[in-house]
C-alpha cells in the first residue's frame, strides 16, 4: 500500500468545441474515501468523471490513479487499462446480455474462462441479493434491479476507484434510499475509493467523506460535508449544499448572514409574520418574514401556527457570507 491518493486531478481543463466544460479543477481522493461531486446539471460533474475514466482527453492538466499518470503526460491510458469501474446514470446495461453475463463481462475481459467468470458473477449477485435475476435481460428488470446489476458489474471489476455518475437519478424515491445504502456498504467493504456525482445535496452530504462543489466547470469549494454545509464559500455554494436563507445581520453592520433552517427557533425576541407553512412529516418548515428579510425555520412536529400569524423567533447561529 502506497501513500499515494487513489485519485489525483490537477489543473484539469476540458473543452468541447470552443466551450470550456472544466476549468482548472484540482482535487484528490484518498484510499477508502468517498468524494461527492455536488453540482447542478451542466456543472461538469459527468465531464469530470469521463475525463477520469478516459472517455475524453483533457485539454490540459493531469489525472493520476494510485500514483500513475493516466492522462496529461504522453498518450492517455485507455479506459480498459485504468484501475476503475463506473456505474452510470442510465444503467448502461447491454440489452443483449443477461444479468449474469453482464456481471461476468469484466472477469471475461481480464482473461477468466466463461465458467469461472459466471461463478464469480453469481457470487456478486448473491451478495446483492439479486441472484434470482441472473437469467434476465435488462428489458425484464425494473430500474432499481437494473442499477443493482450495474453496481454488480462495477464490483466485479474489483477496482481501486469507483465512479458513480448520478446512479440514483432515475430511481423512484423509495428504491433510491435502499440502493444508496447498498452501494455505500459494498464500496466500503472493498476498501476502494469512490467519486460520487450528484445534484442532490442530501445524498452528497450523507454519504461522502469529502464534498466538492462544482459550478460551471469550476470548483467552488471542497471540504467535509459539515464544512461545506456550515461554512459555504458563497451564496451559490450555500444554496447548492442545502436549504438556505439569507437575512440582514441584526447588529446593523449591513452584512448578510446565511441561516440554515435548523439555525433559528420559533419563539424569541425577533419579530416576524408567517408567510407559509409546510408540513414535511417528521418536521414542519415555517417561512418567516420580518425586518431582516425572509427565512426558513424548521421545527419538529406538525405545524403549530397559522399562515399570517405574528411570531417571535431567535437566531441560534449564522454564517456571514462574503
Amino acid at each position, binding site marked *: 500500500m502506497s501513500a499515494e491518493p487513489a485519485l489525483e486531478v490537477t489543473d484539469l481543463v476540458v473543452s468541447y468545441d470552443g466551450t470550456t466544460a472544466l476549468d482548472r479543477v484540482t482535487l484528490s481522493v484518498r484510499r477508502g474515501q468517498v468524494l461527492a461531486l455536488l453540482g447542478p446539471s451542466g456543472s461538469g460533474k459527468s465531464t469530470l468523471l469521463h475525463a477520469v475514466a478516459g472517455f475524453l482527453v483533457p485539454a490540459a492538466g493531469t489525472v493520476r490513479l494510485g500514483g500513475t499518470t493516466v492522462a496529461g503526460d504522453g498518450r492517455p491510458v485507455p479506459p480498459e487499462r*485504468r484501475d476503475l469501474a463506473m456505474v452510470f446514470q442510465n444503467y448502461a446495461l447491454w440489452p443483449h446480455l443477461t444479468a449474469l453475463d453482464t456481471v461476468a*463481462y469484466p472477469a471475461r*475481459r481480464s482473461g477468466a474462462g466463461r465458467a469461472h467468470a459466471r461463478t464469480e458473477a453469481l457470487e456478486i449477485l448473491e451478495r446483492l441479493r439479486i441472484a434470482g435475476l441472473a437469467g434476465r435481460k435488462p428489458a425484464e428488470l425494473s430500474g432499481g434491479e437494473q442499477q443493482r446489476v450495474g453496481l454488480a458489474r462495477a464490483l466485479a471489476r474489483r477496482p481501486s476507484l469507483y465512479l458513480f455518475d448520478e446512479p440514483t437519478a432515475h430511481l423512484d424515491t423509495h428504491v433510491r434510499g435502499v440502493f444508496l445504502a447498498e452501494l455505500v456498504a459494498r464500496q466500503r467493504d472493498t476498501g476502494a475509493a469512490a467519486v460520487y456525482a450528484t445534484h442532490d445535496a442530501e445524498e452528497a452530504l450523507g454519504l461522502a467523506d469529502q464534498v466538492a462543489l462544482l459550478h460551471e466547470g469550476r470548483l467552488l469549494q471542497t471540504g467535509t460535508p459539515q464544512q461545506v454545509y456550515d461554512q459555504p464559500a458563497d451564496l451559490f455554494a450555500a444554496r447548492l449544499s442545502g436549504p438556505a436563507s439569507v437575512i440582514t445581520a441584526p447588529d446593523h453592520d449591513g452584512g448578510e448572514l446565511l441561516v440554515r433552517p435548523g439555525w433559528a427557533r420559533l419563539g424569541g425576541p425577533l419579530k416576524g409574520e408567517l408567510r407559509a407553512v409546510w408540513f414535511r412529516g417528521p418536521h414542519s418548515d415555517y417561512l418567516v418574514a420580518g425586518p431582516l428579510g425572509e427565512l426558513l425555520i424548521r421545527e419538529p412536529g406538525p405545524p403549530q401556527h397559522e399562515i399570517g400569524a405574528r411570531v417571535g423567533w431567535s437566531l441560534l447561529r449564522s454564517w456571514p457570507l462574503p
Partner: protein
Amino acid sequence: MPRGTPRLLPRLTALVVAFLAVLVVLPLCRLVLVVWQEGRADIAPMAGSDGLRTAVWHTVALAAAVTLAAVPIGVTMALVLRRSDLPGRPFWQVAVLVPVLVPDFVLGYSWTQAYARAGFTDTLLGLRWAGIQGPLGVWLVLVVNAAPLVYLVVAVGLAARTEPDLERAARVSGAGPATTLLTVTLRLALPGVAAAAVLVFVLTLGTFAIPQVLGAPAGFSTVTTRIYANLSLGGDPTSFIEAITLALLLVIVAAVCVAPADALLAPRLRAVRGADTQGIPALPGRRAVRRAEAFGLAGYLFLTVALPLTALVLSSVTRALGLPPTPGNWTLAHFREVLTPRTFQALGRSLGLAVVAATVLVLLGALVAVIERARSGRAAATLITLTLVLPGSTLAVGLLITYGRWLSGTLTLILLAYLAKLWAFAHRPIAGALDRLPPDEMHASRASGARALTAVRTVALRPLAPALLGAWLVCFLSALHEVTMSSLLYGPGTETFAVVVLNSQELGRIGPTAALSVVLSLLVTVPAVLLFLAVGRLRPRPSRPPEHLPLEVARVG
C-alpha cells in the same frame, strides 16, 4: 394520435384495400391464372430449359454475392462515419450517398466509360479491364450501388440502439476497442445489419438495369433481363408465356428467401426507437486512425464513383471514342445531337409522371400510416410492406396482362406500376415519423382546446413535414430512375427519359448516351440536392430524431 371519427376510418381502410387490390392483388392473381390456364402444357419443357435455369441460378447467386460484399462495406461505412472526429465528416456523409442518387444504369454505364476498352483509364494509361462487361462487372457495380443502402439502414440502427454509455461501460469493464466493437457495438447493430442484408438481397433479385447494361452484352442473363428479352424481342406466344412464368418465379424466389428472414427480424426491427441519427462516438480515437479512415473512404469513393462519373462527363463532351479527353477534343455536339424535341418530350413525360406519382404516393403512404394505427388497418399496412419484395418486372408483367387490353402502352399503365412499386417506399418514412411523434404533444393540443384536425394541423404537421417531403423526394427520384417497369410498359410516344437513355445505351452510341446520362443525372441530382436542403431546414428541433433520407432511396429497379 389522431383517431379520426369512428365512421371515417373504415372508409379510409376500404379505400386502401381497393387500391391494393387494383395495383397489386389483381395483377398477381392474373399472373397465376394465366400461367395455370395457358401455360400448363408449355411450362414443363420450359422449366427444364437450360436458359431459364441459368437465369434463375444467376439471379440467386448474384443476389447472394452482392449481399455478401455490400454488407461489410456498408457496415464499415456506418462505423467510420459515426465518428464525429472523422476529418471532413459532413462531406463524406453526403458523398457516400451519391451512388444512390445517380440512377443505377448510369453508374453502371459510367464504369464502362471509365474502365472498359477505349475507356478513360485505357485512353490515358493503357489500363483496361475486359471483365467489366460481364458477371464480375455486374457484381461490382451492384455492390457499389447497394453499399450506401446498407450504410443508411445500419447507421440508423446504430444510432438508435447503441447509446455511447453502453460502449463506455464495456471499456471501463476492461474491454479494448476491438472487443467492445465485437461484443457490444456490432452485437447491437445486428438486427439492422440483418435487415440491410435482406433488403439488399431482395432488391438485387429484382434488379434489372445493371445486369442489362453490363451483363446482357456479354451473354450474362438474369431472370429480369430474360423477361425483358422475352417481351421486347421475342414476339411469339411461347416467350410471352415464359416471361409470365419467370415473373411469377421471381416473386416466389423472393418470397421463399425473405419470408424466414422477415419473420425473424420484423418484431425486433419494429421495436427500434428513435434517437439522434448522428450517433455519438463513445470515445475519442487516435487522429492517425481517423485520417487513415478518411483516406480509405476517399479512395473507395474516387475509384467507384468519382472517376467513373468524371469519365462519363468527359465522354459526353469528347468528340470521338478513343480520343484523349483533353480540352482540344471537347465538343457539345453530342448534347446537340440528343437534345431533340423527342428527347424533351420524354423528359417532360418523365417529370410529369414523377411529380404525379410522388404526390399521389405521399397521400397513399400517409393514408396507410393513419389507418394502421387502428387494428382494422394493420393487415393492409402489412400487405403494403410486403410489396417491397415484389420485383418490378413481376409487377409490370402482372399489370400488363391485367390492364393491357385497355391501357397497353399508355402513361396511365406506367403510373399504376410506379404507384404499386413505390407505395411501401412512401409509407415507411411517414409511418416512422408518425410513430416517433410523442402522443403527449397531441394530447396537450387537444387538452388546450384544439379539435382533432386542428391539432394535426398545428402540432403534428410541422414535425411530420420532413418525413412527408422526404417520402415525396424518394418517390420522385425513384420514378425518374425507374427503367425496370417503364422499359416493359412503354409504347410508341410514351417512352420515359430513363427508357430513352437505356435504349441509347443498347444501341451502343457512346457519346450521345453519355450526354443523355449526364442530363438524366443532373435532372435527378439538382432537385434532390434542393429538396435535401429543404428537408434539412424543415427539421424541427435538434432533439428530435432527424429523418434520415429513407432507406430504400433509389434501387427500385
